[in-house]
């Protein structure tokens, strides 16, 4: 199958201080082709697509769109030439409605009423039903993505860039999205599909370009290549899955009964009647699409959000009304998802960040006065044990890469000999080697007798490390069950199926 070339990229390079984000990258996309851009976090995928979309200018190299030189100075120019982009994060306005959000992404939007009618029409046509008058803040993650997609489709794009689109979808919703993308491809729209999920790429894409550390390390036809081959190209090494030793499960260390709480986050999800227990040595995996109460559950467990005393029991003692410090004293440590600003203070040094949660269990204060020598020693211990790459403990947290900071923060919690560990998104945005190290460290603590709750949106991760599995869906938790024998379809249904999205495609089929 030969296609006419739509976009041709030649020798693109881009550097940031200290980092070569892209180096001599070349590849091309044909008309109507679904092309995958594959690579680990930090491989330079995002920078590359930002250059195609006009958000960043390349230092070297050139691009051609349909044979003509293409160098968009800003996104509006790219949009004008038929290049549209669906972002992974940060391009919707929660306090504005769907139609307003769509209008902001268009060059010459029609009057609001007409736009609303077109949103309805296009969303029906592509099986992504959407109400133009709803406030985006009230939408689920999947629905928000639909807003982004519709925004692009209304401008008849020739090239649609999708940045990690499935990370916010249930398996069923992924199927529907793929139907939509195949429909678009059949109509002649090329799609540049960015992902690190290999099975998806094999199911959807016609061609793939693989990036590692900013360079193209290979191209392939995904349907004819095994996931393992692609993974090794992407990572550059063979990976060993974490080892686990079977441990006898002990008594319950964390018990949550009938926990309900309103969300303190604007447009957040309130928690509804959550119940589960975790025993010594057990890892409970909690899955769910983003925005279904994960952040709120972490706040409720860490003590930042207080509830009735007997709703949460640590080692049998009522702890629901305790604050974070008292819960640490009781033996519970927590690691939130957002590293820059929640888990760590970005502008403070690693030493100060070690003090942030370590003060109590590591006895770093005397009568309120800080023992800086002991705190420095604690920071150094974490840096060494968890192989944190940093020039020293005086460095500001924001200077570390995502993976390194995450190793530091997870290490900070794990090195406090905790009895209960709660972690939200342990490996989000972390490269494969660091992710493997983090998972191994969590399993080691479980083997030593800690009870662990891992909240994650990465199903593969949960299936790899969890003993028991539950799903958060709209603030409700399913009853935990053992991981053995779980199928992806079952998990998908636990995650709430396709949130009513299937209707449209079924109607049209």
């Amino acid at each position, binding site marked *: 199958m030969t296609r006419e070339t739509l976009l041709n990229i030649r020798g693109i390079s881009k550097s940031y201080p200290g980092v070569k984000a892209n180096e001599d990258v070349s590849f091309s996309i044909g008309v109507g082709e679904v092309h995958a851009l594959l690579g680990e976090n930090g491989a330079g995928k995002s920078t590359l697509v930002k250059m195609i979309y006009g*958000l960043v200018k390349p230092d070297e190299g050139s691009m051609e769109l349909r044979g003509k030189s293409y160098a968009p100075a800003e996104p509006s120019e790219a949009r004008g030439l038929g290049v549209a982009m669906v972002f992974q994060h940060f391009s*919707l306005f929660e306090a504005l409605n769907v139609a307003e959000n769509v209008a902001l992404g268009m060059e010459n939007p029609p009057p609001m009423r007409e736009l609303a009618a077109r949103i309805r029409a296009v969303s029906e046509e592509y099986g992504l039903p959407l109400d133009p008058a709803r406030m985006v803040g009230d939408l689920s993650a999947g629905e928000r993505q639909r807003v982004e997609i519709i925004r692009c489709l209304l401008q008849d794009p020739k090239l649609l860039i999708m940045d990690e689109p499935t990370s916010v979808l249930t398996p069923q919703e992924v199927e529907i999205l793929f139907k939509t993308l195949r429909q678009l491809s059949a109509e002649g729209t090329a799609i540049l599909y960015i992902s690190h999920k290999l099975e998806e790429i094999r199911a959807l894409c016609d061609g793939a370009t693989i990036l590692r550390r900013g360079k193209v390390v290979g191209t392939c036809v995904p349907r004819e290549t095994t996931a393992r081959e692609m993974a090794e190209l992407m990572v550059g090494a063979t990976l060993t899955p974490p080892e686990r030793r079977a441990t006898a499960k002990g008594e319950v260390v964390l018990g949550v009964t009938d926990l309900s709480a309103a969300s303190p986050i604007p447009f957040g999800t309130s928690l509804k009647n959550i119940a589960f227990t975790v025993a010594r040595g057990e890892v409970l995996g909690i899955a769910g699409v983003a925005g279904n109460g994960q952040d709120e559950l972490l706040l409720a467990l860490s003590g930042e959000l207080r509830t009735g005393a007997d709703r949460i029991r640590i080692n049998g003692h009522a702890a629901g009304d305790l604050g974070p410090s008292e819960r640490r004293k009781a033996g519970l440590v927590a690691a939130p998802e957002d590293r820059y600003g929640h888990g760590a203070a970005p502008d403070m040094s690693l030493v100060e960040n070690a003090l942030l949660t370590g003060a109590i269990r590591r006895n770093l204060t005397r009568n309120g006065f800080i023992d800086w020598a002991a705190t420095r020693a604690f920071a150094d211990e974490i840096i060494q044990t968890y192989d944190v790459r940093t020039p020293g403990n005086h460095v500001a947290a924001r200077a570390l890469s995502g993976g390194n900071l995450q190793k530091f923060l997870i290490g900070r919690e794990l090195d406090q000999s905790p009895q209960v560990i709660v972690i939200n998104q342990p490996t989000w945005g972390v490269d494969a080697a660091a992710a493997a190290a983090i998972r191994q460290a969590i399993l080691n603590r479980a083997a030593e007798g800690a009870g662990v709750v891992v909240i994650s949106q990465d199903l593969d991760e949960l299936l790899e490390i969890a003993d028991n599995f539950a799903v958060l869906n709209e603030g409700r938790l399913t009853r935990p069950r053992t991981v053995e024998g779980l199928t992806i379809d079952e998990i998908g249904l636990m995650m709430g199926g396709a949130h009513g999205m299937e209707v449209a495609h079924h109607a049209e089929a």
Partner: protein
Amino acid sequence: MDFGGINPVILVASLMVAAVPIMLAALGELVVEKAGVLNLGVEGMMIVGAISGFIAAVATGSPVVGFLAGAAGGAVLSLVFAFLTQVVLANQVATGLALTMFGLGLSSLMGQGYNGIKPPLTGKVPFGPLADIPVLGPILFAHDWMVYASIALVAGVWWVLRATRLGLIIRAVGESHDAAHALGYKVNRIRLMCIAFGGAMAGLGGAYVSLVRVPQWVDGMTAGAGWIALAIVVFASWRPWRVLIGAYLFGGISVLQLSLQAGGSAIPVEYLSMSPYLVTIVVLVIMSSGRGRASLNAPAALGQNFHAAR
């Protein structure tokens, strides 16, 4: 129709005049805050507007030139704030405070030798016989043109924010600068323009104080009006028409306490003159409590600086 020596018709008519400065300043600040910027320098921009307008009006004999100069003075001062917060990313709260302190000093310096001079009179709009209608006449048809212009400006800001693309972009920038940037909008440039608009409106309000409301130049004559304007934005929950209501409410209180003072009321003068500030506090409490209704409407990115990292 007198109640304890106070004529309600005159009271309403004069509160409409008293409300103009805070209405204009609050309206400007509303646009600034809608774009996600908190400029606490309103008081400073008002007082600089007051003296710039006063000097220009005295020099040219034209109140129109005076008002234009007042707006220009406020806008120029606001550009200092805009440069510091949007270009070199200084803390907005601290910069706003600096702007107020600097503005108070600067105006006093500029005003040397202007004490005791009368500015040219700002004319009333000739409505002819309409002004003679009892009750409605003095309330609706007997004001200078700035009173009507300020109401028109409220309507204009409301329309722009609600129904135009520019308004949508301003609101978007104030909601999430990251998202706006990802879509290719020039966040800091849009904010800069909103800040300049806010400065011009504060300056216009200040000029109204020195040219119409008082009318003469006195050091520090805005006496906290800029701060009350900031409170009115909260009171209005960032909605233009509520700014009008809020300004009339505060205009009413200041007029009422002045006429009570003049009428020799039994309440001591000190308690009357502190009443506008106390009422401001009470209103802030009411608007902020009740499950944080006011804060729910606040632009999400209010007060945060934006730096396009990559």
